């Protein structure tokens, strides 16, 4: 299968208000994401970063403003979209191999072609040999690896990840960060990665978009100038620390982090 070119995203002046709840989730978000770019969206819980992701996915319609994927206005999920959720959203009744076939099944594609791609993705994540296992037999980290493979199997042009490692323990989370980077370096998809971990956002992102508390606005955008592949040890470098301090200072300014009561 020949890889499709990654998608560019253009978010302009997007506002989303949930009338029922009387809540404005995001306000005046403008963001341009280049094809093949890895963008981390970082913010406190409930700041609307997931809402932005859902708007890009076409799962929510912005109240005002526009979102374009590859120059096409988003109205409903765009073609070639891969999504990863915080809870892996695997289908309990399908084994690993068949879970990976879900995107193919939904577009009535040829399973045989997709099997090859699925096998290579499973190998890339060290899951070969688990094809016949059911989700209930896997650990949290393995399940999330399967979910990522599923998001990639149909060669998406855009990968949207909503706090994918939020439910994992710290050690597994580090491991998944390393693996995700490796996969991204192989696949070079456009990735929008929502997280509330400062470290994770910097480690993975080409850019980190920092959100303010609700209604979410773009408070800052950092270009992360660290060579890839990044090693976990980079997190204790001065440069990394500089980025982290800058974000932390920003959060302190918003009243989100307080040293003293």
């Amino acid at each position, binding site marked *: 299968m020949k890889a499709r070119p990654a998608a560019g995203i253009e978010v302009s002046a997007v506002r989303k208000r949930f009338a029922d709840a009387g809540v404005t989730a995001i306000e005046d978000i403008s963001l341009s994401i280049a094809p093949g770019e890895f963008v981390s969206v970082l913010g406190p819980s409930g700041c609307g970063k997931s809402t932005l992701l*859902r708007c890009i*996915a*076409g*799962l929510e319609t912005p109240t005002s403003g526009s979102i374009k994927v590859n120059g096409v206005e988003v109205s*409903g*999920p765009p*073609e070639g*979209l891969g*999504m990863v*959720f*915080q*809870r892996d*959203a695997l*289908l*309990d*009744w*399908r*084994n690993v191999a068949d879970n990976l076939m*879900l*995107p193919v*099944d*939904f*577009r009535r594609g040829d399973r045989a072609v997709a099997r090859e791609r699925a096998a290579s993705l499973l190998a890339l994540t060290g899951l070969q040999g688990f094809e016949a*296992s*059911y*989700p*209930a*037999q*896997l*650990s949290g980290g*393995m399940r999330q690896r399967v979910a990522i493979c599923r998001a990639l199997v149909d060669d998406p042009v855009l990968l*949207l990840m909503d706090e994918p490692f939020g439910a994992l323990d710290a050690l597994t989370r580090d491991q998944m960060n390393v693996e995700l980077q490796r996969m991204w370096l192989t696949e070079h998809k456009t990735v929008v990665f929502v997280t509330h971990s400062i470290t994770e956002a910097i480690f993975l992102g080409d850019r980190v978009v920092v959100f303010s508390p609700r209604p979410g606005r773009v408070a800052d955008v950092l270009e992360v100038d660290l060579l890839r592949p990044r090693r976990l040890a980079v997190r204790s470098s001065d440069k990394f620390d500089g980025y982290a301090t800058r974000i932390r200072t920003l959060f302190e300014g918003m009243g989100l982090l307080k040293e003293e009561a």
Partner: protein
Amino acid sequence: MKGGEWQGGAMAVLVLAGMFVAWEVAVRALAVKPIILPPPSAVFAEFWTGPAWYLGHAWYTLLVTLGGFGLAVAVGVLFAVLIVESRLLEKTIYALIIGLNSVPKVAVAPLFVIWLGTGVEPKIAIGFLIAVFAIVIDTVLGLKSVHPDILDLAKSLRGGRLATLWRIRFPCALPSMFAGMKVAISLALVGAIVGEFVSSQRGLGYVILSAQGTFDTARVFAAILVLSVMGVALFWLIAWLERLAIPWHASQKEYTPTS
């Protein structure tokens, strides 16, 4: 089956045998009149006077039960799908079904005889009516129990309603549907017996009613015994189908997790 299950089965048989022995001993020791409570030996002896006759009637009752059950599954699942897929139908039909469920269905059995005659149809209809609610209610529950993330995933994959129903909602509902079917199969058997009580010349319900007329208590017990065996067998049939259909579900502890 695992060793533990065999052990459990053996225990159940032992307990049952113990109960029969206790029954036999108690009836003899207390000199209870056979017309009130015959000893199990008399019940078994009665069965052996004509096993083919009993099994013939049992066959009829079985067919009526399966007819009512099958109809309940077909109609019940269809209704459940319509209820889940349409907000309007959920507000109208579902409310109506919940309301109708509180009507004592046995009370309407004579009506079915007036409407459908004295053949097999009214008996199947009563079995259906008693069994269908369990199917509808449990299937609706199952179809609605899909995690919202999984529904979002289906949308993000541009899955239509039909594809989502077939590939996501339906398999997700299976454990719940089987729970409903386990209840429904027993209820269909109740319906079949009620139907035979109301009007029949065949079936175990008829056997019980006619034996009661001649105070042949041993015959009543023999028919109840056959009915019990049938009820248990039908339940295990559904449980066996469940095991085949949803080996992945937590209720089917067939495999051991790797971690």
